[in-house]
């Protein structure tokens, strides 16, 4: 471990912790979210440092990108309700009256033993890792894909991903079940009015960027088999494209009637479940792909999953607006 590498790691980690502390304790909400997005990007850098490119992609696209967009949209809607919402939803400085100060010290004192316990637990681990990399490489050939992460995600632990896709669907159903939020007009205002005069710049950006995003998504989907990429990353890039369109004021929800939107959102989970049921009957075990055409099956699965992930994430962003019949 050369000194330079030590330096780089140190800088990276200090930056990470500093950003996290600042994001959590900054006075203004907007700067908190901005710092959180920066934290997400730095986190992506850390994943690259830890030789986990798949996670770096996912972190950048979902962790920093989409979560950041969601948080910013939520803050805009929160301030959009300024009329009937008391001031403390806007710029809210850290409360420094006595009992808040007390709570801070109390929780700090309480968390110290937790911190030491965790650190002690982690440091007591043996020096060399004892992971499953050997088993993965042994069975990689039979998994139909060469990228170990995609192999684990979509073959060895495909059941996790099945439930995973249902978590996304559940989030969508949950949000739509809470009734459409009346004040999401504020999103459109940002989208349209403030940019009426200059929509040409945004439109050109959209015309140029969205096709590229689609291309990148398709590429990520395809490359996932043998290099970092895959359904989740491709889905999130597509979702970014949809969010961009929503922000540019495109009437996406008129384009996709509620039923079509629901069918798209449900496509991924349905294909997954039917694939699982079929493999149970044909191969005798849940989600068992025959080795010879496991690759193609996984690719099919990934494309449909990417589609519904994209639609679901975009719908999550628009926050229950597109669901009325």
């Amino acid at each position: 471990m050369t000194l330079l590498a030590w330096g780089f790691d140190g800088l990276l980690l200090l930056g990470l912790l500093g950003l996290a502390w600042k994001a959590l304790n900054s006075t203004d909400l907007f700067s908190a979210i901005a710092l959180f997005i920066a934290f997400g990007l730095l986190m992506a850098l850390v994943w690259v440092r830890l030789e986990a490119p798949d996670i770096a992609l996912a972190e950048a696209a979902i962790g920093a990108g989409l979560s950041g967009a969601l948080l910013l949209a939520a803050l805009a809607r929160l301030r959009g309700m300024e009329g009937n919402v008391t001031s403390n939803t806007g710029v809210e400085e850290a409360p420094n009256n006595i009992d808040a100060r007390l709570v801070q010290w109390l929780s700090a004192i309480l968390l110290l033993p937790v911190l030491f316990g965790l650190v002690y637990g982690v440091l007591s681990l043996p020096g060399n890792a004892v992971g499953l990399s050997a088993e993965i490489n042994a069975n990689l050939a039979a998994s139909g894909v060469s990228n170990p992460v995609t192999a684990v995600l979509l073959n060895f632990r495909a059941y996790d991903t099945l439930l995973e896709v249902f978590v996304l669907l559940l989030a969508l159903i949950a949000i739509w079940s809470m009734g459409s939020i009346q004040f999401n007009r504020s999103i459109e205002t940002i989208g349209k009015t403030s940019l009426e005069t200059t929509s040409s710049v945004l439109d050109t950006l959209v015309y140029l960027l969205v096709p590229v995003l689609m291309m990148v998504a398709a590429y990520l989907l395809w490359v996932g088999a043998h290099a970092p990429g895959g359904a989740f990353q491709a889905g999130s890039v597509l979702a970014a494209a949809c969010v961009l369109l929503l922000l540019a004021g495109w009437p996406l929800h008129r384009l996709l009637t509620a039923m079509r939107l629901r069918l798209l959102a449900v496509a991924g989970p349905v294909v997954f479940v039917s694939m699982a049921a079929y493999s149970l009957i044909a191969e005798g075990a849940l989600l068992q792909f025959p080795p010879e055409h496991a690759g193609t099956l996984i690719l099919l699965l990934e494309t449909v999953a990417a589609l519904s992930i994209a639609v679901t994430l975009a719908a999550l962003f628009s926050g229950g607006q597109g669901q009325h019949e």
Partner: protein
Amino acid sequence: MIAVIDLFSVLLLIAGAVFFLAGTLGLLRFPDVYTRLHALTKADNVGLGLIIAGLALQAESWAVAGKLVLIWLLVLLAGASVSYLVANGALKRGIRPWKS
């Protein structure tokens, strides 16, 4: 022969780093949002271009070099339109440009 390419890419990288430094200095020192936008978009884009060029020399295949250039173009596109939108947004909120 190889050393010359390495020397060139090191030089390019250092130049790029200098431009980034300038951009960051501008961000910290400039008084209002519009001037900071200038610093960021102009200095950083050029800096990025130099770094991309330096790295492209190191790339082992033309495909990787092409991807690096694509990254630069995308950042250019995004940088330009985002700075325009931010400036427009600032004007709409009524922030007057700085006058000495």
